[in-house]
């Protein structure tokens, strides 16, 4: 009897959770789908975003993402390789690791503060796609480095020794054997970073700004999708509909990327499991 009540309680909460999230997702889909169309994706926003589309905003989102990745990817992978493979000094590795963990926990709005002070003002980049992208790069680096590092570390040391015992150069062992083996982890980290960067709003408010026009260069100020949703919701009367449309696009984008990441993590475990 007690068990029954308990089970019922659990099922009731699960039903509530599913209902609430069903409400949110249903809301976004139902209100969003009526706005979303091919036209919506390829036209400029009009009337402060109440009408028209989100083409320049999508383009800006991609610009910011790509800038962030172009900076964070090579830097992150080399830092991860260094941490996992080259750093002989244990305490040094530990310290860098602690700094990374600390930075991974910094709230995104604080990255916004930093980006505004450093990129926009100190480096004189102003409110621009470049400032926003660089700020996001700083934001995703710590998590990305840590994911890659653990990916590289978890590659069996047998492969490392095997490669070296064959007289292969260390760089070749890393490039041709370790990195490909760690690639699923790297790509998963990459896609997770993309997801985080795509959803980010607070860090971009004071770095890339919110001009809703088609950017012509990376020094232009521009508005990303998440900021667009924020602005439509908060500042535009009658902007809710297009806000939901943009939210639908944003979620679809992120789900797409998350699914990819999940698939890679799975295949990664499957493969190493097969070997053991």
């Amino acid at each position: 009897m007690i068990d029954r009540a308990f089970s019922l309680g659990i099922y009731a909460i699960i039903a509530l959770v599913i209902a609430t999230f069903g409400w949110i997702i249903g809301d976004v889909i139902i209100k969003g789908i009526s706005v979303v169309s091919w036209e919506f994706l390829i036209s400029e926003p009009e009337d402060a975003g109440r009408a028209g589309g989100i083409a320049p905003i999508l383009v800006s989102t991609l610009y910011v993402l790509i800038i962030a990745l172009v900076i964070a990817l090579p830097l992150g992978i080399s830092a991860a390789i260094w941490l996992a493979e080259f750093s002989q000094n244990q305490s040094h590795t530990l310290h860098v690791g602690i700094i990374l963990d600390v930075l991974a926990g910094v709230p995104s709005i604080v990255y916004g503060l930093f980006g505004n002070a450093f990129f926009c003002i100190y480096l004189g980049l102003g409110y621009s796609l470049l400032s926003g992208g660089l700020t996001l790069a700083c934001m995703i680096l710590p998590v990305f480095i840590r994911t890659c590092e653990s990916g590289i570390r978890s590659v069996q040391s047998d492969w490392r020794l095997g490669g070296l015992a064959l007289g292969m150069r260390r760089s070749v062992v890393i490039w041709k054997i370790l990195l490909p083996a760690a690639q699923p982890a790297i790509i998963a980290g990459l896609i997770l970073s993309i997801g985080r960067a795509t959803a980010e709003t607070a860090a971009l408010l004071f770095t890339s700004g919110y001009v809703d026009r088609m950017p012509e260069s990376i020094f232009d100020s521009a508005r990303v999708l998440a900021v667009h949703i924020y602005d439509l919701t908060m500042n535009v009367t009658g902007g809710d509909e297009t806000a939901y449309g943009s939210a639908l696009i944003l979620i679809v984008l992120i789900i797409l990327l998350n699914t990819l990441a999940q698939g890679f993590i799975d295949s990664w475990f499957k493969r190493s499991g097969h070997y053991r």
Partner: protein
Amino acid sequence: MIVAETLAPRLSEDIIESRAPAHIKVNELAIYYGKKLAVNGISLSLHRGKITALIGPSGCGKTSFLTTLNQLSKLNNQVTVTGEIHFDGENLTQNNVDLLSLRRRVGMIFQKPNPFPLSIFKNLDIPLKEHGFKNRAERIEKIENALKAVGLWDEVKDRLNTSALSLSGGQQQRLCIARALVLEPEVLLMDEPCSALDPISSGIVEELISSLRDKYTVVIVTHNLAQAKRISDYTAFFWTQNGAGKLIEFNNTRQLFSGPKDERTAAYISGIKG
């Protein structure tokens, strides 16, 4: 037989040296981990085209010694090695040794099969490319020969592009041997190559190792005394003394097993200790 057993050890070593030329000559080798002495007193000759087994209990420095022969020990910067290892007139304990070409000439097989997570073909192709074989046709030929040499060719020739990790354990270990052979080394170091395999695969790999005799100088670490007896020409017995590994006895395998000169050797091979 009886004569040999009663003769002093010095004499038997002299006889050995006169029969087969030394390929690698080790003189008073000692290995330190940090400041701690790990292995010492190793002086022996590895003979060209012969199989030498290293036996002894765990932790007595067999594997440490093995890794000094291809200088993989240098990976750990805590490790220092003193003494001499003469390999074709070059002293490997000097600092100016070309590690890459040394490791090409001295291949190594590990306890656990470690094929790279790549295709079967690439496992052999990447090392070849790395050592400057630019001609693809030549590489394909070498790969085929190496796979034939380990008896794997017929089993894998139709699926060279599938993952090496899809092979069975025994096949993987033979692939690793092929990967070492494809570089045409002079010496093969083997660290308990059969211990992670099931008895049948182990038997196949053991036969393969036997077949390498005369073509390669083989040094094999093994805990399987029967295996050492079956396949090796020479046997070195290691033992831990005062916390550090030490070479106790080195002799022709038949003589070492039938007439050990040190009582610790005698006890170990008769299974009393270790």
